[in-house]
């Protein structure tokens, strides 16, 4: 019996280890071998694909490693697969259209891999301190990635993101310090059984605020629009999909330590404020990337609503994350395809897209309708699962607010389709041969169309994983 966890751990951990190795390979090899310059992307993609093939179905048990710092279970396997898939998609986008200048290619892939590793450790973290380290491993590379072009919008994005992110990290550290005084072990299991004290509450609040920064819950969302807009679009796509996932998982762990009480009340208010204000703020946006940024904030709110559904809610969260990631990476890819400067296209730049490139416009509408939660697209199923748990636990008021706000969100998602289909193009669009970005877009569009109607396989995986948090 001892053999099995070790052999499983060896194969499971080979994924992140391979990513770390590949990260250094991307960074260092081209320095020594001149002919390898420019191929970092391919090395990176190859390594990720190898990591994906190493992926193995987890045995139905939870193994803790490194004194409980890492918990390997079907849950971590599910989320690692998610992280690898997101990474692979972002790599394809980065190869098709390099996000970093020629001389920074190596750093770009290095940082991206470090961030992905950070995400993988974060979702498997068994104690708060590991979670914090992993969060920093996820965030620090992203600050640098946001500004990797060293252009004005990029630096502004990186600066804002770093300042606010550092503030959030500071709060987390403070909170962990307080909690450490009360719970020496700091593992999530120990936190659950500890005594309730006012000081502990303060500690938890600080930690929750720190992770709410990463998940982009209002009022901790201020960095999101600027960071998403100024960062290279490939990086924005990665941030939207992965940082949110990492933050949400840790928040869920913190949320489920409690059974009602002030922490849940705070989450209730965070969810309400987030869905209401994010959706209203999104109405006024003109830039596509800013729109997607506010949409990402709103979706963080819907995910927080799902927390209230207990076990079912967590299952819904695990289904929600990949569905949201597909739609948002898809939409960012469209932005990437159409962007002429660093801030990405304005929504009105999409005018006439339906005439010039009907399939692309169709895919973009699929992403928009999925984000809006219109059936039969996957986003509807995700929202449905998320809300059904909360209603079942008696949080009908919260769900009523959330569904009303998703009716508000219809307006800004529809605005994109209105521009694409019903406004004439300002200028003739040159015909372009489809490339790898289109391949990603159509793959993801097929995903959001099929993952809803045929949500059973993904739902079963999510349900299996949700039992092991």
């Amino acid at each position, binding site marked *: 019996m001892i053999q099995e966890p070790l052999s499983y751990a060896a194969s499971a951990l080979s994924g992140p280890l391979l990513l770390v190795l590949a990260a250094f390979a991307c960074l260092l090899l081209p320095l020594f071998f001149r002919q390898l310059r420019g191929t970092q992307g391919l090395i990176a993609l190859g390594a990720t694909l190898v990591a994906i093939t190493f992926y193995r179905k987890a045995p139905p048990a939870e193994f803790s490693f490194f004194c409980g710092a890492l918990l390997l279970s079907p849950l971590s396997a599910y989320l690692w697969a998610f992280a690898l898939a997101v990474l692979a998609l972002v790599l394809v986008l980065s190869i098709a259209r390099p996000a970093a200048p020629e001389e920074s290619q190596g750093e770009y892939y290095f940082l991206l891999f470090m961030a992905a590793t950070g995400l993988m450790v974060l979702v498997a973290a068994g104690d708060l301190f590991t979670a914090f380290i992993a969060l920093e491993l996820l965030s620090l590379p992203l600050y640098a990635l946001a500004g990797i072009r060293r252009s004005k919008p990029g630096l502004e994005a990186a600066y804002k993101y770093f300042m606010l992110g550092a503030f959030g990290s500071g709060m987390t550290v403070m909170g962990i310090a307080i909690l450490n005084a009360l719970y020496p072990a700091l593992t999530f299991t120990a936190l659950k059984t500890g005594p309730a004290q006012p000081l502990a509450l303060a500690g938890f609040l600080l930690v929750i605020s720190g992770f709410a920064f990463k998940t982009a819950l209002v009022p901790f969302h201020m960095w999101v629009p600027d960071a998403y807009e100024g960062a290279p679009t490939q990086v924005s796509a990665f941030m939207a999909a992965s940082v949110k996932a990492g933050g949400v998982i840790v928040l869920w762990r913190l949320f489920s330590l409690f059974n009602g009480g002030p922490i849940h009340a705070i989450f209730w208010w965070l969810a309400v404020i987030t869905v209401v204000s994010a959706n209203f703020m999104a109405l006024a946006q003109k830039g596509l990337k800013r729109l997607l940024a506010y949409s990402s904030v709103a979706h963080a709110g819907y995910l927080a609503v799902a927390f209230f559904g207990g076990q079912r809610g967590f299952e819904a969260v695990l289904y929600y994350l990949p569905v949201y990631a597909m739609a948002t990476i898809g939409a960012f890819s469209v932005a990437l395809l159409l962007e002429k400067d660093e801030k990405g296209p304005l929504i009105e730049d999409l005018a006439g897209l339906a005439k010039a490139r009907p399939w692309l416009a169709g895919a973009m509408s699929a992403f928009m309708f999925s984000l809006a939660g219109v059936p039969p697209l996957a986003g509807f199923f995700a929202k449905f699962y998320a809300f059904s748990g909360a209603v079942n636990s008696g949080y009908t*008021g919260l769900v009523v607010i959330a569904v009303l706000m998703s009716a508000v969100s219809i307006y800004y998602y529809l605005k994109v389709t209105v521009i694409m289909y*019903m*406004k004439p193009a300002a200028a003739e669009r040159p015909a372009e041969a489809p490339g790898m970005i289109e391949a990603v877009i159509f793959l993801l569009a097929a995903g959001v169309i099929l993952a809803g109607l045929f949500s059973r396989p993904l739902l079963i995986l999510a349900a299996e994983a949700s039992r092991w948090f």
Partner: protein
Amino acid sequence: MELITNPLSLLILLPAAAGLALLLVPPEKEGSLKGLALAAALLTFLVSLKLYTGFDPALAAMQFQLDKPWLPSFGIKYFLGIDGISLLLIMLTTLLMPVSVLASFSYIKESRRAYYACLLFLEASMIGVFASLDLFVFYMFWEGMLIPMYFLIGIWGGPRRIYAALKFFIYTMAGSVLMLAAILWVVSAHHAAAGVWTFSLPALYGGALTAQAQFWLFAAFALAFAVKVPLFPFHTWLPDAHVEAPTAGSVLLAGVLLKMGVYGYLRLAVPLFPDAARVFAPWLAGLGVVGIIYGSLVAWSQRDMKKMVAYSSVAHLGVIILGIMAFEPSAVAGAVLQLVNHGLSTGALFLLVGALYERRHTRLIEDYGGLAKVMPAFSAVFLIVTLSSIGLPGLNGFVGEALILFGSFRVYPWLAGAAVAGVVLSAVYMLGMYQQVIFGPLRHTENKVLPDLSVREWLYLAPLLVFIALIGVWPNPFLSRAQPAANNYIALSKQRTAPVTPEVKIALGGEETR
């Protein structure tokens, strides 16, 4: 395999698959696009004939049932089945669809491929709404229908199409999201009581919900359906959407989409929450009558023919709501028949207005006059349809309206009396419009050369005319199918499911658990 062999499921999958297939045809092959769309619509109609012949009118139970698990962890099933009401509405849909396709041949000149695909997707979801017996599946079709209709109005519509399409989508969606929350509530209450997750309607009927819970749940459902019907004062999206939509879009909006709202009351809102339905019924019937008078008066003052027909729909649907809220056998059966009648006659009116518009590119009444001289066949058809719409005895409109008014008079004498006034008004404005368009001198020289109905126009008008006359003189095959379902609806509405203890709180604040 059952997905294909069951005629109901086939009726949903066939148009959807045909729509997908259309997207693969190269857009420049105009002929094959049109041919494929028409063939798919006709084939769907032929399949629906099988429903008609196989349907046993004596049974009140759901027929042609298909029950396949879909998402078992939530108890969601692909559960289909029809009774007489759904049968008639599905037949109406499949009849109007080839008509709409045929009517679009010359009107739609841009992106035909996407247009016909949208029409077919719309048909699939409309049939899905009428055929599903699972709340989740129902909601999916109900909302999914918005996407193709939104594009139909927004891309191929008139000058104010963007405004109309957005208004249509947001109004309907905003009305429906609360229904989603209510559906989740009902299902979780059923889970709490019975211990199983199910979205199946027959299982949820008669659930023991408190009167207060029923009140809120009925309100959420009723709002969604009131927007769709549309009931006064939720009707303001309708004139915009109808006027801006292309002809086929208006035909389907008036012919089928509005019926979905009424169908929602018949199938969901009232049977699920009978206690609350009894409380709301007089108010809804009252709103229906307000809609009759208001719709007629506004229609009277219109100068645009399409707008007039649109407002007349508000009035006609008001009569139907009065009928179903009377819970009286003949009124409910009459209302079901009137759903079909309204689809036929208003559909035909939109087609005729569309035919005129294609010739002259105007819909203003004053731009016409004296058409009887140049377009005699058109004038004759227009006359029949107008008379059918105002309910002349011998044509279809009369049977339905008379049954509704007789039936509801026993329950709401004052409301029924006021409704009669509305019916009289409809004669005033419809005949007034007819007279100004068809009779009188030929004032405009452009009108002297208008061609009469073409063969294609005859082809799509003829089936509607046949049914307008047939239901007028021989309504029995239709009524006999609607009656058991109507009786069943009344029986369900008479159930008293609320427990007697009135003091039960519902957790609407969110912080308290049940």
